[in-house]
Every structure is written in structure tokens, then in C-alpha cells.
């Protein structure tokens, strides 16, 4: 990694330099003061940097060298499915016929884009076992909220607007309760049992005629398959609630168990996880939602349909729709990438994706089990959760272990999540990593376990090789500096 401080772009600015190339104005010049009222003409120019094109490229190249991506090295961040991002996908998304089309062009001029969206929807219906799919949500959390709004509309249409509770397991992703709250629901937590699965007794106790839905990730955030899924769905359905599938972990079950067959009524997917839309340093994502028949009338507007003559059309005449969740039609550019991935893998490829993701995770879990506590000792799916409580007794926290991994060139696992595991480390290798990579990472974690016993300070003081050492997060929050100010 690039060492040394990289100045802010503002600190590299020098009056008089430019980095742009605009055409000469080819219409008569007019004084802006003749066109814009004085009060609305900006007095102080915005302090944007003044730099040359090479200055810009060097700056961002230097920044990129201070950043770790999947292409830089292993990135086993649990729940995030940091698989390889195929380069061909980047190429096709940049085709001018995809990148340079306006969303409000006449439908006759964008039939190719609409066909791609339709084909993607069709594939996702098959993959999830759902009856209809919308590509509109921009990301996973947006998809969660969209689906919950549909569930709400469904209950209201049935005269059951009183159903105001959404049940969420204590192991759920934070977005689940947050999305339910934004959709206007109250949250009820259901406990996990000693096996790390939904506690059926507790579920029976919390469901009732005020239950709107249960949100569930399967496999759950411990990487464990909810083997009582049929019963869970029955319990919720028996009281009139809907069952929601958080698709963050779909990589674990492709071609093995479809949400629609497991009893789920709706699902969101993270195309930027399972289907290789790159994560982009935190987005853009894409969070399509799939639904069973009885939720179709409530899909957000517009709904993409194929007409009898084979052309594609956006249908706005949807009287029961929850309305619009996003301007236009979703993160099309990410959807193009996901479609390219599905076409590259095919049915056989997607099956292998899941099989190898699960094989990789189980292999790592077994290699590491002697050195770290494994709170739930059974076959995992695409990820598993270790506990650092043994190391904690030696004065080495999971945070320290994560920071020490940086010295080995790895991105650490997701840590302190799910909340029900003490000193948790959630490891998701994905199927695109080789056995050599998995072995080298396991070796590093095993070495760190030894260091915790023999030389804990090297772990406690890590990282030692990064461009900065541990950062003072308390200071950042206590005295927030959220922007550069010219001295």
C-alpha cells in the first residue's frame, strides 16, 4: 500500500489551473445579470479545486493505493458476499446503448433495455421461486422497505390495517428492523434457540392477529440453515402474517432451496452481492423484490410488462400499487451487470456457485475450529461465525484480531455481528477464492491465535503496516469535522 500522507485535493489546488475542456460558446454571449435576478446570482464562487488533469489522476491514483478491494486481496466480510467482480460486466454496462439512454425516451427507442430488464426479472423469478419481480429498489434496505410497504398495503386492502407488528429475529441484519420502522411498523424480536435457529416456542408466543410479517434470512446471519423453515412459515401464515425473505444470503442456497418453495411470500435480493454488481465502496447496489401472486397488485409503479406483440411496456395503471419507490426504473446499470453474470454462469454455473461457496466456508470453519471457539458446531452454509472469547480471556479482543489481519494483507471478517455471539467474527469466503487463498488466510488466523497466547501486544497494537494506525473514532464523533475548511 501507498505510504505517506496524501493531501486533500483542496490542498493541491492552485489558482489559475484548470482540469476541464468545454466547447466555446457558439451563441451570442449575454450578461447573466440580464437573465438572473441579482439576489439569485452567486456572489462567492464555490471553492472547488483548481488542478490540472494529471494532478487529478495522480491524486485519485494515490487514494486508490490507500484502499483495499477484492482485486487487492481476500475480503471475507461476512454477509457481504465479496466475490470477484467480472470485468466483462463493466464493459457491457458501458455500452453506449445502455449507458447513454435517457429514462424518459419514448419506449419504442429503448426496447433493448426493457428486454434486458424483462429477461433479468424472468431469471430472478425462477431463481427465487416467486411470481413477479420488480427491479426498482436501489439497494437491499430499499428492497426491504419496498416489500414491507407492499405487505402493509396488502393487509390494508384486506381490511386488516391493524396488523402493525413485524417480527425480526435477534440475529437479523440491522436493516430489517430499520426498514420495518420506516414502513411504519412496530418491531417484535424473536429469540434464537441454543442451536442458533429461530426459537419456535418464542415465535408461537409473539405471533398474533397483529402480526404483519416475519422477516427472515435463510441461512441466517450465523450461516445456519433454518431447518424448521416449513414450520416457521406455517406459524406465521396461520395467524395471517406474511413471511419475508432477506436475500442477503442467497449465495448459500441457489439451486438448493428457493425462497418461494420454502414458504416465503416475498424476497429482496442484493444483486451487488450474489450477482456480482461491484460494491463500489458502498454502492450503488440493486435490490429487486420478488413476490408471490397475492402481493402482485401492490408492486411499485411502473410495472414492466411484455405485450402480446412482443414489445415491452411500462404499466402505470396499477390502482393498488404502493406508488413509486424511486425515480425511473431502478439501478439499471447494476442490473445490466447482474444479467451479464447470470448469462455467464447459466443454470449449472449458479449451482456450482452455491456448492463451492458452502464447501469453502465449511472447510475454513473446520480448519479454524481448533483455534477459535465455534459457538454453533454444525455444517454451515456460505458463512460461519467464530467467537473470540477464548482470546478475550488473554486480553486480545476480536477487534485486535481484525486489525492484526490487516498486517497480513487481508480484509477482516465482519466483527461483532450477529449480536448474539460474543466477540463474533463472521467469515464468508465466497466461491471465487482458491483453496490456496483460504489456506493462507486460515494460517494467518491460526498464527494470530498463537500470538494472542505468546505475544499478545503484537495483536493488541496492530495494525503495524497500514498507511495509518488505529484511528481515534471517539474524537471523530465528539468533535465532528465533516468537511475541509480553508485555513
Amino acid at each position, binding site marked *: 500500500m501507498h505510504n505517506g500522507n*496524501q493531501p486533500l485535493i483542496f490542498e493541491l489546488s492552485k489558482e489559475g489551473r484548470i482540469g476541464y475542456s468545454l466547447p466555446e460558446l457558439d451563441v451570442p454571449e449575454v450578461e447573466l445579470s440580464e437573465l438572473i435576478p441579482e439576489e439569485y446570482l452567486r456572489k462567492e464562487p464555490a471553492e472547488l479545486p483548481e488542478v490540472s488533469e494529471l494532478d*487529478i489522476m495522480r491524486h485519485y491514483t494515490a487514494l486508490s493505493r490507500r484502499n483495499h478491494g477484492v482485486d487487492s486481496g481476500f475480503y471475507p466480510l461476512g454477509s457481504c458476499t465479496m466475490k470477484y467482480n467480472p470485468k466483462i460486466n463493466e464493459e457491457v454496462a458501458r455500452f453506449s446503448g445502455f449507458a447513454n439512454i*435517457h429514462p424518459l425516451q*419514448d419506449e419504442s427507442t429503448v426496447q433493448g433495455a426493457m428486454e434486458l430488464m424483462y429477461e433479468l426479472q424472468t431469471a430472478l423469478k425462477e431463481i427465487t421461486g416467486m411470481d413477479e419481480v420488480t427491479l426498482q429498489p436501489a439497494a437491499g434496505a430499499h428492497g426491504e422497505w419496498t416489500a414491507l410497504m407492499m405487505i402493509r398495503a396488502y393487509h390494508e386492502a384486506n381490511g386488516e390495517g391493524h396488523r402493525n407488528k413485524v417480527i425480526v429475529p435477534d440475529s437479523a441484519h440491522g436493516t430489517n428492523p430499520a426498514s420495518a420502522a420506516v414502513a411504519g411498523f412496530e418491531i417484535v424480536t424473536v429469540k434464537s434457540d441454543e442451536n442458533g435457529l429461530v426459537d419456535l416456542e418464542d415465535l408461537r408466543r409473539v405471533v398474533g392477529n397483529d402480526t404483519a410479517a416475519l422477516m427472515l434470512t435463510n441461512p441466517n446471519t450465523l450461516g445456519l440453515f433454518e431447518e424448521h423453515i416449513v414450520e416457521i412459515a406455517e406459524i406465521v401464515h396461520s395467524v395471517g402474517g406474511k413471511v419475508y425473505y432477506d436475500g442477503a444470503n442467497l449465495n448459500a442456497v441457489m*439451486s438448493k432451496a428457493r425462497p418461494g418453495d420454502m414458504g416465503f411470500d416475498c424476497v429482496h435480493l442484493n444483486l451487488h452481492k450474489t450477482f456480482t454488481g461491484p460494491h463500489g465502496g458502498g454502492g450503488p447496489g440493486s435490490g429487486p423484490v420478488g413476490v408471490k401472486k397475492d402481493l402482485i397488485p401492490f408492486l411499485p409503479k411502473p410495472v414492466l410488462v411484455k405485450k402480446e406483440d412482443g414489445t415491452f411496456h411500462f404499466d402505470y395503471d396499477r390502482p393498488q400499487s404502493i406508488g413509486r419507490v424511486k425515480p425511473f426504473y431502478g439501478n439499471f446499470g447494476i442490473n445490466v451487470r447482474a444479467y451479464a453474470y447470470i448469462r455467464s454462469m447459466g443454470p449449472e454455473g449458479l449451482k456450482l456457485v452455491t456448492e463451492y461457496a458452502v464447501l469453502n466456508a465449511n472447510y475454513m470453519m*473446520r480448519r479454524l475450529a481448533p483455534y477459535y471457539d465455534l459457538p454453533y458446531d454444525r*455444517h454451515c452454509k456460505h458463512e460461519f461465525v467464530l467467537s473470540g472469547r477464548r482470546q478475550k480471556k488473554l486480553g486480545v479482543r476480536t477487534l485486535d484480531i481484525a486489525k492484526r489481519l490487516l498486517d497480513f494483507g487481508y480484509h477482516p471478517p465482519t466483527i461483532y455481528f450477529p449480536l448474539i455471539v460474543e466477540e463474533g467474527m463472521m467469515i464468508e469466503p465466497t466461491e471465487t*477464492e482458491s483453496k490456496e487463498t483460504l489456506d493462507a488466510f486460515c494460517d494467518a488466523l491460526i498464527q494470530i491465535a498463537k500470538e494472542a497466547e505468546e505475544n499478545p501486544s503484537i495483536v493488541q497494537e496492530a495494525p503495524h503496516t497500514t498507511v495509518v494506525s488505529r484511528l481515534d473514532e471517539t474524537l*471523530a464523533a465528539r468533535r465532528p469535522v465533516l468537511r475541509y475548511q480553508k485555513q
Partner: protein
Amino acid sequence: MKHRYLPMTEQDKKEMLETIGVESIDDLFADIPEKVRFKGLYNIKEAVSESELLKELQELADKNTNTEKAVSFLGAGVYNHYKPAIVDHVISRSEFYTAYTPYQPEISQGELQAIFEFQTMIAELTGLDLANSSMYDGGTALAEAGMLAAGSTRRKKLLISEAIHPEYREVVKTYAYGQSIEVVDIPIKDGVTDIEALQGLIDEQTAAVMVQYPNFFGQIEDIKKIGELAHEAKGLFIVSANPLALGILTPPGKLGADITVGDVQPFGIPESFGGPHCGYFATTSKLMRKVPGRLVGQTVDQDGRRGFVLTLQAREQHIRREKATSNICSNQALLALAASVAMTALGKRGIQEMAKQNIIKTRYAKNAFEKAGFTVPFQGAHFNEIVVKVNKPVSEINQKLLEKGIIGGYDLGRDYPQLENHVLIAVTELRTKEEIDQLVQEMGAYNA
């Protein structure tokens, strides 16, 4: 099946199964109940090779009329602008695009610093104290602003100008429904928010007044006056602004805005059929702890070196769960980076130059339309859009234009019954005098 994305060999498989202590991969799925187990393969198309994929998708792409080949006068929230070539080169660096949200700051300083710079540029442009790291798009950013206002004022009514993008308004209404917040439309008069009507609507239940600047019709409204009315009623003032226009226009922060949102698509982001684009969210220090989404803050490491971290995370879903200020998690980081690069390339001068060209070229188009006998109903100050009245259905005219390789303007009759046969024409710095003249001439020919 062998696949270039899957490094597993038969030997690897054998050794790994042995370590795990199972016979086959199927054993690892034994916990899936028989009843729900999926057997066989998905009924989707067979895999294609890389060259076949290129061909297949190129064919789909070629079915679309793209704005590189056709001359586009279509705007309405998404614009065909100059995109500095350098933007795509920066965001193609895979250290950026293959990274996740920067949870581990020591190996994510590049992304964190880039976001910090983005926050600074947005705060500069909007004239507000701070900005977040991005939102999905301008529409959801506006909705989140409305939710913040309702939460912070403990009031349940949003007044939204009909001169705001119709699709943005629809998104606000969907979000508001979830939170049981009432959304009331403020009517328009002469292409701007009807201030008299607003005075009648505003009351002690008003959480915020929401306007667009420049508005959906390209008009630069007297937003200062509207802000004053909002504040008199102790509501917040929310402005949805085109950030490019802010290169020339007085920033909303200086005109009383409490929150300014919008979409940075004009900065180096392709139209991409409507997404991904990138919303921004700027506000005052007073509302800092209620901001949705990620914020990057400056701090120091153990050796006193400057560094950057995600901060004030107690607002966010992964900490606060159902008590979070928003459910947003992934945002549009890579496109915030793209916009940063474009804003940097434009710089202090370029952004003024580009914004100015938009205004002057649009004025040229306005004069040309009027000279050709068209009525331009709204005569106020404008940015890069004007409304033109035509004698025939806009769709018919646009069909004719398309035959000449021109993508016509937006049919306002779709959203505004009173504006049937009115078209919204966008003129950016990329449109030449010749193209504008041709547009006016062709439209004149069909309009007769």
C-alpha cells in the same frame, strides 16, 4: 463444468471434503428439509462464453437509441452533459469499485478521503454546513429530507410544490405514507410555486415546505420568500437543487434552506436509463445528528497523522436498528466518487463556465422558439430548461423529430393536465447553435 470464475479443482474438492469429514458436497445441504429442497437446475438460459455474451448484449444495446448518436433535448431531471474522460478512468480503478463500505478505516483511507472531499464539495455548492456521503438518488434524498423534517419538528404535514419533479413527488408520497405523514401539493402559477396558495396552506402542523431550484420547468423561483414563510410557521425549508446550477446561483443555504438535496448526475454520471445516479443530502450543523446515511469525519491515528473514519454512527441502522434515523445502508459511493472527479475537473472556474453556458444556450433557444412563432409561457429566469407550447400532441412531434435523429423534449401533459401540448426542452452545454436551430426549425415545420 469448468468456469473461469470458479477456481475449485477436483483435487481441492477431495481434500476439502476430507478435512470437513463428509463424503460429498450434498452432505453439507442435508439440513434443507426434503419438502422444500430444489432438485435439478434452474430453468434459465444456458451459459454463454465471453464473446457470445458481448455479442448478445451488444445486440440488445443496439436496439436502443442512444444520446451519443441522437441529439437530445430531453432533460426533466436527467441530463446529457460533458463527462470528463478522466471520470471513468478513476472509477474503473478496482481498489475503489471492488471495495465494500469502508468499515476498516486503516485499509480504506482512499475511499474515506474521497468521500470527505465529496462532502466538502457538496457543502460548498449548497452553502450549508455539511453533507453526507450520498443517497440513492435525488428522489429518495428528498423523501428522506421530508422524513427528517417530520421527525425533527414532530409535525405530520409536508407541503410540496407541484413544480418539483413529478416522480420525486411520488416517491415522497410513498415514503410519507409509511410514516403516516400527510403530503399536500402546493399549486403552481405561471410555472412557479403559487406563493399565495402556499400562504393559505401553511400552518402549525407544517413540518416542511419543499421546493425545487431551478424548478421542474427550469424556472428560478423566489425561494427566499418561500423559505421565510416556512420559518415563520416554524417549519423547515427543504430545497431540491440541481447542483450544476449552484455553480452560478445563490446557494440554498444562503437563502434559508435547512436541507438541500438533489442528484449529482450532471457531474460525470451517464444517463444510464435512469440509474444508478447519486443523491446528495446537505444540511445545517443543527440537524447533523439526524442526517440519514453515512458520514465521514476527520480524525487522527495513534501517531497523530490525519485520517478519516465513518462517524456519528449512532444514527445508523447497524447500531440503532429500528431507532435509526433511516434504513439506508448501501448508498451510491462509487458515483459520489465519479461526481467528485467531475467536480474536481470542472473546478472553481469550469463549474461556473458550464452552468453559464447552460443558461445562455437555453436563452438562445427560447429566443429562437419565440422568433419562430412559438409561445414560451413561463417568462421568468431559467436555468437549462424552458417550456414551449405546441399545437399538436407532443408525442407526435417527438416522433417526427426522432426521424431526424433528434430526441425531443418531455411531454408535460403526462403529469400536468393544464399543460397538455406543452413540451419541456433541455439545452445543455453540449447542444450547438446549429442543433438548436435545427430543433426549432423541425418543430416549426410540424407545428404548422
